[in-house]
């Protein structure tokens, strides 16, 4: 499998606090990777660095062979790296359709595709409802739909299952598995069940470093990981 994202020696500090400490890894095309770790491990910061919400203190990022370290957020989105947010962050005063349309305008996608995604994710009946007035679960789907409309090559999802009731989680799992067959996924998640069912590869972060990286079975048995999560020694 080809390499789609390469991160080299990425670091970011906030004052004396090293949020991301000399991190390097590759993501392989069409592989579903999960990024896990305790709170404050640096997962979201790492994602923010890759998606240029933050500037790295040092390091390089290459996407499909191209150095994107100095590009900004909207540029890398156009290149094909799309992310979602932990806290729902849409256009509250616009309708569901309008939210999707903004995304479609970003990737120059036509209206037919918007209709298609809306029916696939069963958002049709919310078409003209303002996003701030729909339920949390629907908002998450809208965000996912927007991400897809941006034609991502690499889709980074920051805690997509957080706050979702059981029903919606199962639904989300199904959708993500389908998406994962055509798009490379990087998922930050806390729900272990979710992670182990979805991921083909797991990276574990702690205190700004990646401390483990491999197949789910290997990670479960990794003693360092167990120590962090279960406090075993």
């Amino acid at each position: 499998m080809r390499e789609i994202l390469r991160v080299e020696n990425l670091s970011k500090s906030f004052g004396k606090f090293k949020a991301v400490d000399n991190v390097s890894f590759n993501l392989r095309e069409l592989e579903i990777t999960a990024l896990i770790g305790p709170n404050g491990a640096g997962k979201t910061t790492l994602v923010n660095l890759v998606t240029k919400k933050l500037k790295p203190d040092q390091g390089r990022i290459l996407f499909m062979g191209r150095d994107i370290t100095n590009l900004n957020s909207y540029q890398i989105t156009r290149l094909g790296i799309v992310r979602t947010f932990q806290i729902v962050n849409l256009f509250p005063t616009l309708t569901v359709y309008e939210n999707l349309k903004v995304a479609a305008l970003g990737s120059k996608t036509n209206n037919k595709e918007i209709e298609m995604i809306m029916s696939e994710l069963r958002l049709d009946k919310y078409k003209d409802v303002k996003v701030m007035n729909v339920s949390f679960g629907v908002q998450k789907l809208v965000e996912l739909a927007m991400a897809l409309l941006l034609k991502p090559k690499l889709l980074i999802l920051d805690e997509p299952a957080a706050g979702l009731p059981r029903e919606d989680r199962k639904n989300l799992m199904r959708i993500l598995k389908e998406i994962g067959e055509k798009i490379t996924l990087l998922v930050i998640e806390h729900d272990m069940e979710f992670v182990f069912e979805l991921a083909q590869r797991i990276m574990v972060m702690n205190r700004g470093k990646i401390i483990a990286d491999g197949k789910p079975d290997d990670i479960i048995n990794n003693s360092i990981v167990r120590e962090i999560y279960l406090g075993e020694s």
Partner: protein
Amino acid sequence: MNKFLRDINIITILILGILLGLISLTGDRFYLYISSLFMIYSLYALSYNLLYGYAKLLSFGHGMFFATGAYITGLFTLRIFKDPLIGLLVSIISTIPFALLIGYITLRHTKVYFAILTLALSMFVYAILIKWRDVTGGSDGLVGIPKKGVIVDISSPQLNYLFILIFFVLSSLTLYLFINSSRGLLIKALVNEERLLFTGHNVLVIRLYAFMISGVVAALSGSLYAIFMSVITPDIAYWTFSAEPLIMTLLGGSDYYLGPLLGVAIYVSLTTALARFAEYWMLFLGITMIAIIISFRGGVLGALILIATRLKDKRLKTSK
């Protein structure tokens, strides 16, 4: 097409246009005067709300576009080519690069600095207008801006009125169609700047676009003002004049496209019709502004719509 014909804003503008047109038939000078002011200030306030209500940009210097629009029209028709229509067109066209320039230097700043920078820039324009006597007439301003030109002759009050009316209806419709287009949607999306960036859009360019269009419409209203009043002085560039469309927009309601029109209507009718109480009105305006910020930001239009919706819900409940 059908959807547009049934759009309430478009219907309102057209009905308003017809009503205003009927007023011109009466020939009553007072009503012509007050309605002309209404139309001119409405365009000014609409241009302001594009920045404030839609693009979420608080500018304290919007008067600079109104003033330069007015002065360019005045200067052009007085010194270069005597025709109000041409003067107006020249003014609008020259505002495009001017607005882009101002936008380019101000929009990259954060909100508070943007507000203060626009304030400083408009005061800079004011300073030039008031000091450059030879060109701008200084504090006396420009006098005798012609209504009778080579191409159009709008010397009669009714023709002048019609001139303003046509621009008013066309501009408010065009601006509305624009805000409902794809580009307009991107401007509306400025409500969440971060998300917009992550949706692959260059926020600065979108803001610049909104700023430019807003500036051009303001310049248009300034030009109409210059022709209508035939006398203009530098105080239209003073920051307190920039605050007026802001107050009118807040008063009427910035959440709806036509909200500012309601604010202008209230403002104009009260300050001219009840000019005796003008001092009290300004005080009332200040207090209203405070009240709106503290409690209900929807303005008068927002309040009316809220009441209407509640009444509708009540009726639905009782009919069951």
